[in-house]
């Protein structure tokens, strides 16, 4: 597919957003490896971390190819600073308690499910191919996090309270997922990506449907945080990246 320079630049930015969402969320989940609440969930969360990092690897490799300056997926993952990361603020939020981890995951998984469903019809074939493979994994992720929201919300008094607190805390980061800018509009105009605003009703319906069954309340509309897509992150990302990148930066090109 021949892209003009502006579209190529827009696609590079968009692929960084997709890839960084997966990389940052995958790393967050990997922090729970050996710290899960129970053996089976430790393994489940680590599996989801691996799926996400695998998707990030494919997306960032494609980003490097589209950029055309010879940067690999590893270059993009390990040798960019906080303000060059384009992930949504939601995915960089710390794990907190189990309910916080699962609320963050659920809100993002439902978004990913609807977004990737649309992206699988992208006119950009390499992107559509990555997405088709990822979608199988995402269908499992959303079942996992949805089932947990159901059990936490409709569980004990304590699990309900923690799940509602977690939702209330994460809700302010959901608006950003549906933002548009000139890059997105340009790509949407060419059928490469969907219009994010058009995903919102489906996302809200899925989220509402499940939260209702989980006896949880949709949080009241309030302040919505934004900035991740332009590199203005919460204070949590820098600390996470320091840990994630230290080895690759201390010993560049290390292999093991």
């Amino acid at each position: 597919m021949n892209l003009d320079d502006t579209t190529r630049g827009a696609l590079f930015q968009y692929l960084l957003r997709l890839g960084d969402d997966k990389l940052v969320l995958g790393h967050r989940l990997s922090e729970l490896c050996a710290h899960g609440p129970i053996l089976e969930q430790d393994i489940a969360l680590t599996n989801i971390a691996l799926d996400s990092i695998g998707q990030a690897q494919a997306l960032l490799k494609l980003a490097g190819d589209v950029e055309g300056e010879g940067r690999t997926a590893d270059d993009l993952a390990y040798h960019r600073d906080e303000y060059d990361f384009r992930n949504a603020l939601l995915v960089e939020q710390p794990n907190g308690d189990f309910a916080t981890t699962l609320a963050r995951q659920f809100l993002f998984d439902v978004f990913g499910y609807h977004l990737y469903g649309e992206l699988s019809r992208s006119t950009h074939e390499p992107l559509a191919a990555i997405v088709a493979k990822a979608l199988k994994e995402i269908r499992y992720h959303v079942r996992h996090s949805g089932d947990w929201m159901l059990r936490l919300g409709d569980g004990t008094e304590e699990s309900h309270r923690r799940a509602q607190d977690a939702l209330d805390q994460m809700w302010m980061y959901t608006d950003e997922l549906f933002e548009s800018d000139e890059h997105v509009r340009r790509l949407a105009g060419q059928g490469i990506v969907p219009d994010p605003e058009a995903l919102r009703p489906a996302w809200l319906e899925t989220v509402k449907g499940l939260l209702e069954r989980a006896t949880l309340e949709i949080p009241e509309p309030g302040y919505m945080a934004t900035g991740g897509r332009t590199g203005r992150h919460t204070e949590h990302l820098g600390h996470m990246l320091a840990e994630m990148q230290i080895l690759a930066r201390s010993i560049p090109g290390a292999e093991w």
Partner: protein
Amino acid sequence: MAKEGSDRDDQWLLFEVFLQEKSGQPHQHAGSVRAPDAEMALLNARDVYARREHPISLWVVPATAITATTPGDAEPFFDPADDKVYRHPQFYKTPRGVRFKAGESA
């Protein structure tokens, strides 16, 4: 959370996991998982046992639903088989007529 399958009440229910690798083959015991209910047991079983093996079907069964023999049952249950060779088909000699009929080559 629940008391069944454990003497401590901070443990989830125990489920036994069975995997089927190919269509037509039996489900075989793979191991066990703990989970608060059957649906979650299925997800846990998938994550613990099915990520590398690639089975086509999974069963989870509450461990409490399985009735098993005890070591003390072994003698009365299984030992009598030892000295009853006539229970194996190989014990019987096949008469010549029957033996050759199948091949039709005598």
